C-alpha cells in the first residue's frame, strides 16, 4: 500500500522546513505572530507585572502619555492601553483562529463530498458555492449580525451572555467563509480520487467516509493549511470592519476591532489610541498573509506564487 508514500513523509517534512526557512519574510512573520500570541497569552502576567488593571476605570488619569507603568499610555477611561491591546489580541486572535478553522471544516466537507461523489451533488454544491461567492457578503453579514438569537432558538443564557457577540461573529464568518477551501478541496479530491491507492481502498470495500477522511484528506491538506492561514488574517480584518459598523465584539470585552472603532471617533484628540490597534491589526494581518504565502511556497513547490 502506498498510502504513506503519498502523504507528507519524513523527507517531505524536511524539504518543507528547508524551503520554509529560506523564505525570510515568512520566517519573520511566524516569529512576529508567535510573539504577539505569546504576549496575548501572558496578558495577566503583564498586568500583574506593571501593576495595572485592564478594566479599572480611572477618570483622573485619562489620555495619559506613556510612562513606566503605562507603556503605551492610557485611554479615554484611564485604562492601560498596552494591557487592553493584549487582552484584545486574545479575543481577535481567538476569533480569527476559530472562525477560520470553522470555515475550513465546512469547506473541506463540502469540497470532499462534491469532489468524491461528483454528479448532481457536485453540481448542486458547486453552484451554491458560486452563488455564495457572487453575493455581496457584507450586507448579508449585517443582516445575520442583527438577527435576534432568541428567535432562532439559541438558549437564553447563551444569547444573553457577554460573550454572545463573540460566538455570533465566529459563527457567521464560518458560515460564509468556507467557499475558497471548498473549491480547493474539490479540485484536490478530483485529482486524488483516481489515484491507485484510492482505487485499491475502494476495491477492498472501504466505506466512502473512510476513503475521504483517511485516504484523500491527508493528501490535500497543504492547500487547506495555506487557505486557513490566509483566512485568519481576513477574519481579523473583517472583525474590525464589523466593529466599525457597530456589529462586532461588544464592549466591555476588548477586541482590536472595537478598540480601533472607538478610537477613530477620538482621532483628533488622541491619535495614538487609533494608531496602536490599527498598527497591530495591520502587522498581524500582514504577517498571516506572508506566512500563508511562505507555507504555500514550501508545501507546494510546483505551484507558482499567487
Amino acid at each position: 500500500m502506498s498510502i504513506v508514500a503519498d502523504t507528507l513523509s519524513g523527507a517531505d517534512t524536511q524539504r518543507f522546513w528547508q524551503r520554509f526557512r529560506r523564505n525570510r519574510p515568512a520566517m519573520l512573520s511566524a516569529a512576529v505572530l508567535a510573539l504577539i500570541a505569546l504576549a496575548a497569552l501572558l496578558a495577566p502576567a503583564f498586568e500583574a507585572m506593571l501593576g495595572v488593571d485592564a478594566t479599572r476605570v480611572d477618570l483622573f488619569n485619562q489620555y495619559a502619555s506613556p510612562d513606566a507603568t503605562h507603556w503605551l499610555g492610557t485611554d479615554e477611561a484611564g485604562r492601560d492601553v498596552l494591557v487592553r491591546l493584549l487582552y484584545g489580541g486574545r479575543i481577535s486572535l481567538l476569533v480569527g483562529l476559530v472562525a477560520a478553522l470553522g470555515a475550513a471544516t465546512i469547506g473541506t466537507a463540502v469540497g470532499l463530498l462534491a469532489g468524491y461523489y461528483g454528479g448532481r451533488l457536485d453540481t448542486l454544491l458547486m453552484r451554491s458555492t458560486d452563488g455564495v461567492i457572487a453575493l455581496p457578503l457584507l450586507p448579508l453579514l449585517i443582516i445575520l449580525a442583527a438577527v435576534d438569537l432568541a428567535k432562532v432558538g439559541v438558549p437564553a443564557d447563551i444569547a444573553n451572555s457577554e460573550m454572545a457577540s463573540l460566538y455570533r461573529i465566529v459563527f457567521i464568518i464560518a458560515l460564509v467563509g468556507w467557499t475558497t477551501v471548498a473549491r480547493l478541496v474539490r479540485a484536490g479530491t478530483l485529482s486524488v480520487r483516481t489515484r491507485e491507492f484510492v482505487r485499491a481502498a475502494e476495491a477492498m470495500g472501504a466505506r466512502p467516509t473512510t476513503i475521504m477522511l483517511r485516504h484523500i484528506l491527508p493528501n490535500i491538506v497543504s492547500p487547506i493549511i495555506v487557505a486557513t492561514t490566509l483566512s485568519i488574517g481576513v477574519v481579523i480584518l473583517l472583525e474590525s470592519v464589523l466593529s466599525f459598523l457597530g456589529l462586532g465584539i461588544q464592549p466591555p470585552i476588548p477586541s482590536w476591532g472595537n478598540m480601533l472603532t472607538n478610537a477613530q471617533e477620538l482621532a483628533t484628540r488622541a491619535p495614538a489610541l487609533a494608531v496602536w490597534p490599527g498598527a497591530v491589526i495591520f502587522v498581524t494581518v500582514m504577517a498571516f498573509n506572508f506566512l500563508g504565502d511562505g507555507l504555500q511556497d514550501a508545501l507546494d513547490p510546483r505551484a507558482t506564487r499567487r
Partner: protein
Amino acid sequence: MLKLKTFIAAAVLATALGATPALAQEKARDELVIGVSQFPQGFHPNLASHVVLSLINGMTRRPFTVYDADWKLICMLCETLPSRAAGTIRDWTTPDGEDGLEVDYTIRPGATWGDGVPITTRDVAFTWAIGRDETAGINNQELYRRMEKIVAHDDSRFTIFWNKRTCNAEAINDFELVPAHLEAEAASEPAAYRTRNAYDTDPTRAGLYFGPYRIASVEPGATITLEPNPTWWGKKPAFKRITVRTIENTAALEANLLSGEIDYIAGEDGISLDQAIAFEKRHGDRFNVVFKPGLFYEHVDLRLDNPILENLDVRRALLHAIDRTAISERLFEGKQPVADTFVHPLDAVHTDDVRKYPFDPDTARTLLDAAGWTDIRKGIRHNAAGEPLRIEIMTTAGNRVRELVEQVIQSNLREVGVDLRIRNQPARVLFGQTIRQREFPGMAMFAWFSTPENIPRTTMHSSMIPTAENGWSGQNYTGFANPVMDEAIDRVEVECGAEAQTRHWTTIQQNYAEQLPVLPLYFRANAFVMPDWLSGVTPTGHQYPSTLWVENWTAK
C-alpha cells in the same frame, strides 16, 4: 514599505500636531452650510418625525405656539397667546358630558404660503381633518383626537374644542399646518396620502412653506438647500442660501468643518460632546463652541421587582457609589450637569429641595451592609443565602459615550462590592423590545426626551406599567407604583392654580428622589460648533430648535 511607513508617520504627525489646518475657502459670507449627522426621513411635518426635519422646519415654517430660548411659551403663527384672563380660554362640556375647554386663536395677519396664497382657517380645518383620519398615517394622532372639533369664525379666527380640561391647553406646538390648496387633492383618498403628499413627492414646491426660507433643492441622503422665501412676513433673513449637509460619520463631519466644506455643526444633531470638547481645545481660536444642556435626561431605569433592587437601601447605595460628579467633570468637563431628578433646572417647575445623593462610597457600603449584603468574597458582596450581589446593566450598543459611562459605573460599583455585568443591545432591539416589554433584568441606561412642563404620567403613574395584558402600553418600565406619586400626577393635570402647580410638582420631584425608581445621571448637553463669524444663533436646550429664530442669524 519605507514609503508606507513615512506615509503613516506623516499622517500620525499631521493628526497629532493638527499641522497646518487648511485655510477655509473664503466663501462669500452670504451663504451658510450647516453640517448634521443624519438625513431626515420624509419631509411631511406630520408624517415624519426626525430631529433634522425639525431643524429644517424651523426655517421653512412656524408653529402656532412654541417655547422660546428662555423656556417661555410664545406665539409665532398666532397673534396673541390665549388666556383665561383675556377670555380666550373658556370651560366647555363635551357632548359626552366631560370637562373640556374651548380656546380661541387668531392667525397673524400677513401670514402667507410661499406661493402667495394666504394662510387661512381653511388650512387649519384641513390639517385637523387629515390628522383625525385613521388611515392617513399621521404620527401623533392623539393630539387631534383630543381636539373634539374646530370651528372657524372667519378667515383668520378659529376655536379649538378640547375634550379634556388641562392646564396648558394654549400650547399647540405640534399642530403643524398643511396647505389645503395644495394637499386637498392628495388627501381625497386618505389611505394614499402617505405616499402622495407633495412634501414627499415634490418637496421643492414653494407653496408648502411659509417660513423665512423654503426648500430650493433636495439631494436625498446628502444635502437640502434653502433659499429665502419671498412671501415671508417677518424680518428678512441675512443669508442668501442655507445648505444643510448630512455627513454621518462624526469624525468626517469634524474634518469637513476643518477643511471648510461646512461652516457650522448644528447642536441639535451633530458631534458628540467629548468630540466637541476636544475640538474646542484645538480649534477654539477659529470656532465658537457653545455647550447647551438639553432636555435629554440620561438615567438608569431600575427593575423594582428585581429581588436585589426592590430594596430602597440598595438603590440609594448604588447612587451614592457612582461618582457622577467625576463623570460630569472628567468626561464632559462639567458641561453636562448632574441631575437630581428628571426635571431640568431651567424648567419653570423645577425645585432644588429634593434628597441628594453625593458620591460617598462609605455610606454606600453601610447601606449595603444594612441590606444584608455583608459577606465579601473576592471583592464581591454576598448575602446570607450565599447569593452574589450581581446586577445586569443594559444600554444601546454602539453609543460610545454611553458605553464609556457604563464602564465607569461598573468600575465604581465594584469598589463597593457590586458585580455589575454589562450586556448591550442595538438601539432598535433595546427600545423596540427589551425596555418596552420590560425584559431587562436589572438596570437599563437610556435617555428621555421630553418637553418643558411635561407631566410624567406615562413614565411614573402606576397605571402606566406595560404588561402583555394592556398591550405593553405605558412607559413606566421600572414598575413604579407609589400612591403619593399617583395622586400628585392626577392633581397636577387638573389643578391649574400657580400655588397648586408648584406644590404638586414639588411633591413629584421629592417623591422621585426619595424613592429612586430611577438613578438620575445627568442632562445631556448639545454642542453647537460655530465659526467665529456667525452670530445670532441661540441654542434653546429643548426640543424646539434654534432655527426657529434663523432670521436673526448674521455673518459678522
